[in-house]
């Protein structure tokens, strides 16, 4: 264990751009590295990524290990795993962090096994204890509890949820080193036949979300929410039941088994506020609830609420807002 030191962050890229969770992890990593007086490095795999590597330095990395090769343009599971595992064996960081994205949660488990080390899933909190051990805090039991987890092997590997750690401000004056690494290619075994973007912007990026739940009477009524969302420049979300009923696609689901969102404003319409739903939206700056049942738990989480029928309240809001803008 003594040979291990420093922190490393996996920088995930899609289409040549780093995923913002990478900057968040660098922010948290910087804070912990400074506390311990150790180095913060990052590993980036992609095709012609030098500019993006520099961005990682602007966001806090002391060193960026860059694997530049066309094979890394898209996610190539086994080549990613092979090269990252080799790097970790060489650099020996004490802590290695991944974003808990689909890609991160698919890749990190394989690397942890290849390294024979422990992996903590989907953390929402990280803390350094005095002995240099990482305290990893994560929701489990469908979001009902928080488990505090420690790892006795090194590196201590964790996937960390997007939008829970703040990133630092980008600073072009920050200095760091980009180290180009030799790439070893192994058989991919998986072939990407086709890749397509799913139409709309992901709701995890929206600043305002209007969500509907079982209080809606039929699938078509999501258009009412869409009208309000459009007027306010936001996106449409959903609790799970409408998704399960096929009323709206799963990309719109907010909650434990859907998306975690952190918009400026979250408007919950006909949603009761189950722990699994709250797990996905409790980080919103302002929560507005529209529900006909005054005892619905969502009101305890709301900054603003109206006890009433959503079919009456939403049209009134729409009229009022239209009145404002005309």
């Amino acid at each position, binding site marked *: 264990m003594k040979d291990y030191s420093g922190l490393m962050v996996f920088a995930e890229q*899609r289409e040549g751009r780093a995923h913002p969770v990478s900057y968040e992890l660098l922010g948290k990593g910087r804070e912990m590295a400074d506390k311990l007086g150790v180095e913060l490095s990052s590993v980036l795999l992609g095709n012609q990524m030098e500019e993006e590597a520099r961005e990682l330095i602007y966001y806090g990395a002391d060193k960026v290990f860059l694997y530049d090769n066309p094979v890394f343009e898209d*996610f190539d*599971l086994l080549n990613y*795993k092979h090269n990252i595992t080799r790097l970790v064996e060489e650099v020996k960081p004490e802590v290695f962090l991944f974003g808990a*994205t*689909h*890609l991160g949660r*698919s*890749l*990190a*488990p*394989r690397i942890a*096994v290849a390294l*024979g*080390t*422990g992996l*903590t*899933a*989907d953390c929402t909190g990280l803390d350094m204890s005095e002995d240099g051990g990482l305290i990893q805090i994560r929701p*489990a*039991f469908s979001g009902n*509890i928080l488990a*505090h*987890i*420690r790892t006795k092997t090194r590196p201590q590997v964790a996937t960390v949820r997007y939008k829970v750690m703040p990133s630092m401000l980008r600073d072009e004056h920050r200095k760091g080193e980009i180290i180009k690494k030799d790439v070893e290619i192994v058989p991919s*075994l*998986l*072939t*990407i*036949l*086709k*890749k*397509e*973007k799913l139409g709309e912007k*992901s709701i995890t990026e929206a*600043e*305002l979300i209007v969500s509907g739940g079982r209080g809606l009477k039929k699938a078509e009524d999501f258009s009412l929410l869409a009208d309000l969302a459009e007027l*306010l420049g*936001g996106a449409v979300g959903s609790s799970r039941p409408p998704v399960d009923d096929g009323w709206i696609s*799963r990309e719109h689901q907010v909650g434990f088994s859907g998306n975690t969102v952190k918009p*400026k*404003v979250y*408007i919950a319409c006909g949603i009761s506020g189950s722990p699994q739903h*709250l797990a996905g939206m409790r980080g919103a700056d*302002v929560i507005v609830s529209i529900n006909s049942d*005054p005892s619905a738990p969502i*009101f*305890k*989480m*709301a*900054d*603003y*609420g*109206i006890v*009433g029928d959503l079919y*009456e*309240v939403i049209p*009134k*809001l729409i009229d009022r*807002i239209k009145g404002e803008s005309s």
Partner: protein
Amino acid sequence: MLRIIVPIKQVPDMSQVKFDTEEGRVDRSSAAAEINPFDLNALEAAVQIKEKLGGIITTISMGPRQAESALRDALSRGADDTVLLTDRAFAGADTLATSYTLASAIRKLGEFDLIICGEKTVDGDTGQVGPQIAEHLGIPHVAYVSKLEEVGEKLVVVCEMEGERYLIESDFPVLIAVTKDINTPRLPSLRGKLNARKAEIKTWGAEELSSIAEKGRFGTQGSPTRVHRITIPAEEGRKGRIFRDTSDEAIEEITNALYRYKG
């Protein structure tokens, strides 16, 4: 004919389970045990392949003796064979030890073509065991599979990752972890239930795996991570401005708030 393995975990029914906020305890005895809901989708996917192409489905579960009932349930839903991995030595396993134990048992079962896991469980909730089994076995995997496009000479699946949809092709053997979108699991058939009741459940312990596995990698001993504390967050709550009616004043104030905060 495909040889398909479906690892399933027995979990408490989340709609019943009670949490002790003060003690930070999960009271598992408060809830009935059932097959992890995501694993029902994995099993259903296997059964649909079998119906189309023929095959043998082996379900495998690591857990206490009681997990036998989950395996019987799986038989009644279309599985052909089962293995229960149960032993004191397996207890306290994290995902590294769990996946190692499951992978060892899969090796012992012999050749296979396809392993289908659930996306994650509703209790441990890590989603790590599937990819980890694949790594132990040295086979590729695809996670977050929402559709089987083609099962033939090769496997072609749809996988969704953050707003992108991939069509991915693989040779066999391969492991996939499936999401809830892939299908709607069927209910157990009456005949299935009757057969399941009589079926013999193969049970293996550490001893049965000793020729292919190292004992030190099972259970607590083989687990580098440890849950050292559980807290149950009391809902922090917000002091909301709640209107009991839909008066113009309420609409006015909420509209103003929307404009103020949406930025």
